[in-house]
């Protein structure tokens, strides 16, 4: 029987373990609000909130999705065949809700918003030095405003979500009007400019100057379609002026040489001209694929994702800026050929090529930063807003002429307010060619129809008549399926 005793003992041991409750032991898992109740936690959440805005091909602005959604303007077009069906949809005003590129931007913005919401909801509960906590909260407000600003311009009426919490109600959310969205954007940026510090914690993070510059841009846009509140122009000018007047404090300035700005080497990254820019690290798995192969002709091994329309190139004023902006002679295995003899018979952008370690380096994962707001933007926002708010002031002339001088163009003088404003818009199209600006200018100034009216025969024509409905993208199919109320 002694054996039996041994077995009983073994058995009893396992029984004793039953007293333990069935409890989860989530070692290593961060859960709930506890994750953001300290300064380091808050900081981790803020840094994390930037990530969806630049998460490779998955979400945000790190891939050609950023140009895809803006193809309706003249500075951008794509290959007429090849693998560019989704990009063509944008260029030809026949965007399908199932287009995956639109979802990349949509998801990136909303995922960033969700995480910013989490910080905004919790920062007041963190005890510690306000001088540390407030700038972090300011960044969250900036991220939320930045994301909503892209969403409202691309989609117009959108769900306005200000909480990070999930509930069954998310499936029944209604769309908010652009007016409501802009209201939130304005108040967020007003919070951000107050809370942020003057210096950037890192080149890829927002400071007070970036918040003010973005707010100025928002005001300028609100002056035009669809809000059309002309009183915003004065606010835009004033806000831009604040940035210009304090550029030293914020660390902003023009890079004197355009060739340095667009060198395709590390010399172009993190310059004072970056008011707000996304930074990348290709070797860390966080590369930027807007630059490099995506922008290069297939004659040189590129992907032909985006390049300029013919008329835009032809009308671009000759000079240093044109040379820096475009790439027109292709080095193929059969020798150097002119763009007219290239596969797509179009000039390409020089701005987005990679020249390190060798010129025209073929890569789709780059370290190049993507400047979303440059100091040149601030100058031109000021100039245009000033003119639209009343008359172009001396400061307004100074601002645009600074940009023109760098581009190798003569100074402007003695223009009517309307002509001056038009000149600025024209200047913006050249200065920011290919740079996420022109489409929004066409949209707010209701120029989309005219800009697409006289395309070169070799460019892709719109497949349907352009109306105001074409100004906005369809709500991505996935979300419209989940909540048919937002279709």
């Amino acid at each position, binding site marked *: 029987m002694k054996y039996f005793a041994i077995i009983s003992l073994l058995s009893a041991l396992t029984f004793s373990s039953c007293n333990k409750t069935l409890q989860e032991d989530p070692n290593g898992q961060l859960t709930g609000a506890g994750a953001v109740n300290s300064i380091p936690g808050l900081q981790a959440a803020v840094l*994390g909130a930037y990530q969806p805005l630049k998460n490779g091909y998955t979400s945000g602005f790190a891939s050609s999705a950023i140009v895809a959604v803006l193809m309706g303007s003249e500075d951008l077009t794509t*290959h007429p065949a090849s693998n560019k069906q989704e990009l063509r949809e944008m260029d030809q005003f026949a965007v399908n809700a199932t287009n995956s590129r639109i979802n990349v931007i949509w998801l990136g913005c909303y995922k960033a918003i969700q995480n910013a919401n989490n910080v905004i909801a919790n920062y007041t509960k963190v005890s510690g030095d306000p001088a540390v906590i407030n700038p972090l909260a300011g960044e969250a407000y900036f991220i939320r405003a930045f994301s909503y600003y892209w969403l409202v311009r691309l989609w117009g009426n959108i769900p306005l979500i200000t909480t990070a919490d*999930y509930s069954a109600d998310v499936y029944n959310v209604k769309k908010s009007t652009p007016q409501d969205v802009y209201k939130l954007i304005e108040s967020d940026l007003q919070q951000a400019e107050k809370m942020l510090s003057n210096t950037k914690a890192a080149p890829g993070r927002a400071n007070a100057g970036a918040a003010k510059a973005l707010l100025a841009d928002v005001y300028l846009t609100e002056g035009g379609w669809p809000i059309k509140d002309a009183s915003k122009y004065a606010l835009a000018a004033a806000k831009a002026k604040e940035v210009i007047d304090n550029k030293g404090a914020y660390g902003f300035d023009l890079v004197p040489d355009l060739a340095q700005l667009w060198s395709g080497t590390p010399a172009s990254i993190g310059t004072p001209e970056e008011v707000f820019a996304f930074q990348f690290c290709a070797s860390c798995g966080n590369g930027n694929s807007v630059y490099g192969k995506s922008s290069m002709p297939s004659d040189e091994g590129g992907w032909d994702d985006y390049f300029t329309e013919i008329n835009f190139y032809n009308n671009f004023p000759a000079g240093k800026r044109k040379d820096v902006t475009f790439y027109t002679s292709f080095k193929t295995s059969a020798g150097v050929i002119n763009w007219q003899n290239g596969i797509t018979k179009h000039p390409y952008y020089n701005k987005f090529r990679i020249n390190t370690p060798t010129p025209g380096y073929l890569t789709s994962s780059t370290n190049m930063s993507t400047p979303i707001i440059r100091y040149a933007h601030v100058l031109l926002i000021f100039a245009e807003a000033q003119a639209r708010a009343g008359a172009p002031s001396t400061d307004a002339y100074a601002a645009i002429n600074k940009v023109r001088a760098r581009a190798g163009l003569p100074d402007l003088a003695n223009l009517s307010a309307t002509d001056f404003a038009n000149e600025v818009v024209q200047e913006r199209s050249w200065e920011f060619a290919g740079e996420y600006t022109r489409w929004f200018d066409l949209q707010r100034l209701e120029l989309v129809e005219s800009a697409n009216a006289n395309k070169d025969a070799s460019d892709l024509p719109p497949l349907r008549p352009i109306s105001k409905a074409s100004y906005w993208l369809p709500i991505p199919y996935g979300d419209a399926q989940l909540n048919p109320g937002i279709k």
Partner: protein
Amino acid sequence: MNTANLSCSTDEKLKSMFPRIVFVWVLCVPVLLFAQEKKIKGTVLDDMGHPLPGINVTVKGKHQGAVTDSAGSFGILAAKGDVLRFSSVNYEGDEQTIGDGSTYLMALHSKVRTISDVVVVGYGVQRKKDLTGALTSISTKDFKDQPITSVSQILQGRSAGVQVTSNAGAPGGNVSVRIRGNNSIKGDNNPLYVIDGFVGADYSTLNPADIESMEVLKDASATAIYGSRGANGVVLITTKRGKPGQLQVDFSPRFSSSRVIKKLDLLNAADFAETANANAAATGTSPIFTPDQIAQFRKTGGTNWQDEIFRTAPTQEYQLGISGGTDKTSFYISGNYLDQQGVIINSYLKRYAFRSNLQSQLTDKLSLHLNVSAARLQSCNTTGNLGRFSPVTQAIAWSPTLPVYDAKGNYTLNDPISSITYNPVAIAKDQSMRNDNTAANLMLGLRYEFIPGLSLDVSGGVNYTNAQGRNYTGPAVSQNLPSASRSSLEGIALQSTNNLTYTHLFGTDHRLTLMGVFEVQSFTSNGFNASGNNLTYPSMEAYNLALAATYGVGTTYSNYSLYSYLGRVNYSFKDKYLLTASLRRDGSSKFQGNNQYSVFPSAGVAWRLSEEPFIKALHKFDNLKIRAGYGVTGNQAINPYQTLTTYSNVTTAFTTGTVTPGILLGNPGNPNLKWETTRQADIGVDADFLQNRLSVSADYYVKNTNNLLLSVAVPAYAGGGSVLSNVGKVQNKGIELTVSGTPVMTKDFKWTSSFNFAVLNNTVKQLVQGQDTLFTGSNVGSGLSTQSEFVLIPGQRMGSYWGLTYLGTWKPKDAADAAKFGAQPGDARYQDLDGNNIINGADYHVIGNGLPKYSWGWNNSFTYKGLTLNIFLQSLSGFDKLDYTYAAGITANSDVRQATIADIRNRYIPGVNETSDIPAFSKTNKNYTLSTRFLENGSFIRFKNIGLSYELPKSLLHRPGITVSLSGTNLITITKYKGFDPETNSVTSGAGADVNQGIDYGSYPNAKTVTLGFNFKF
């Protein structure tokens, strides 16, 4: 019959010593003693020395009866001079007169249908004739004629209602095993594997040569004993045991050669160049190739990328088994070495396996068994590399005009014409994903027999796994940013099972078995990983991560536990009326509060009509039984911590060249998660005719799964991702038929054949409240498709594809209609459901289904003297494949810019070929991969094995016995499918993977293999 008198010990003390202490939770045991009689104990063995459970023991002329337990033991009261009768199925039995002794060892000879009469069921064994549930038993002899290298191959095609699909042809590649379909969408649908009593074992590290038998439990009355893990069916695996008697040594070397099952018909370099130029001409761009270049390609032929990545791959395997033992102690020791090379270059699997099974009768009451096994699996490039990153996809995408290596001997890095990703040869060779997995399992069991018929089994098991990963991505597949990583994952699963079983024959008619079990399991895993990016010395791969520009590290931990109480009653009256009832209560730490515990009951009844006089009078049936069963099972196969909202770690750059860690909100947690429960009803009939030469078994079942665990997508505007919820209902129902028999049996020639067939129908019954569609795909064809490929809709089957109906090309007579869509003749034409002349989301609908509806397997052995021919066919049908591999090769999509598939020559060409339904090259054409254009019938019949083996006549050699065999695996496949292999799938893991079947996007194709094998018996 041999009767041996062993140690004598009339156990008078037992009654008084019966413990009143620990096991109050078991039923009381009636012990019947009569004064004039004495207690007789005995053990019944077959002629191989295996214990025979389930043998009826009766005392002639008296109402005394007993039945042998799983150790073959019985106890009965009898007086000197009484005659004991031993009987079994179809066996009239032997008799034994009681003498002076009280302990007997009975050996029933092979004229008794012995071992096959007993099958392993959950937590015990049962006589086959007593079964009330649906179960398939597979033993070594069923697959001995086939070159088996993995456990899943044994299951394939051998049991009605069990679908085994080789999703990936890589050595050791993913295999899905589904018993009676998929109950769950989010949860795991793999059956529960129980190896020698260890619940939830990993079969992939098991050496198939060690398997003695496998039982597949299909219906709830059989699986409910596994409660929360029984919903997907249960596979019980019993490994070999030593046999008392002479030492036996088995040595089997095997040598194979494999090739890819098929290659696709692709354009040669010159045709490709001409086609690319035609595309350019049609879309207004400049020609890509000059006539000189094309002439040159015509001469040289260019590169056949398929030939570059596929190869003829050798495999060798050596199996050594040694077994033997005495009456009290026996052992089985085996060692196995497998070196299997893949048909894609630079892929292989090596397996080293060891097992030692020992059992010993320590005293007449106490016995012990100890099973120890260890295996190490070393693999390279057998997982990962899916979709656009697969060498197979890229072999189709890359321009045949490019060489593999440039003039300097380096990989051609860039394809300027077609593919936008890496050189297929570089993908295969300049990167490696190596996994060294070690698994060790120890099962120690002690069994104490209080009195014959009443025994306690206490067993403890440890399953230890250790996975070491070394990944390397070379410069050619990383845009010159080589990286490497190391990972380590240790898992420990512990199990303690306490099983008290009582079996008794009351009188001669009432046979009762009662069982109670308490079981605890816990699972812990601990992992870490480190990666180095932009390696300074790429040649050091993962061996010196410190020399890298940037690093990443991570650690993981997970833990959960399961407490279970279970009981079962088996009752049989006159061996005619059978009842099985079981109840299990499981508690899991994965859930919270009241949802932690759940009860899973089941009941099964059977009526052996063949025991009734009116059936016996027919003289038709050797056995005729009808069965019915009902039970509730669960599925908790979700990851721990799903009830909590957790953050994920992310890193992103704020300064060029470095990244900073941050946290990002993950999927919302759901504190209300609970068990997914499946209620299953089954009716079946078993019949044997013609002296057991023909057996037929048929089943009909209905399974209703409630509280379906689903990943409900969260709108992107609320952060995206998904939340795991209990929503919806699905129903699986089906018919299963098995016919086996021996159609021909003469002195020298024998044909045995076994055929099984199953129909499976499933329906989504209900979804999330207020939602009539739910997308379950994860956009498999990233780069090809733009959205989820799969949808669930109430009333439809699971695994439904969501897409457009392709109507061929627009023809010239319809030019005006085409123009309304912005299209022209030659462009793709899709069905415009809402008639708005725009093809968009509103035109998507269910276009097909990826889950096979019909499956069958047919195994035949023809034996002529020592020569055996085995032919084994397997078929799946009634499903569609979404052929992304073909789509990627014939359309331009986001990863491929030119067509490479030879069919493109037959495209619509204005003025030349205006009848083709392959769209023309045009600026206005739109290709949607999610359309019926790329949907193909996936049905296939495959010769899984054609093998010939010859056993050298014993007269030629005294010993050893030698068998030589030559077999061909997958040699012939009959299918209309255009891709490589209708059996492979691209979705093998991740949310919804189990119902998202049928997409083939560069999957690792299966191989056809020829094997030469030898077996030496000493």
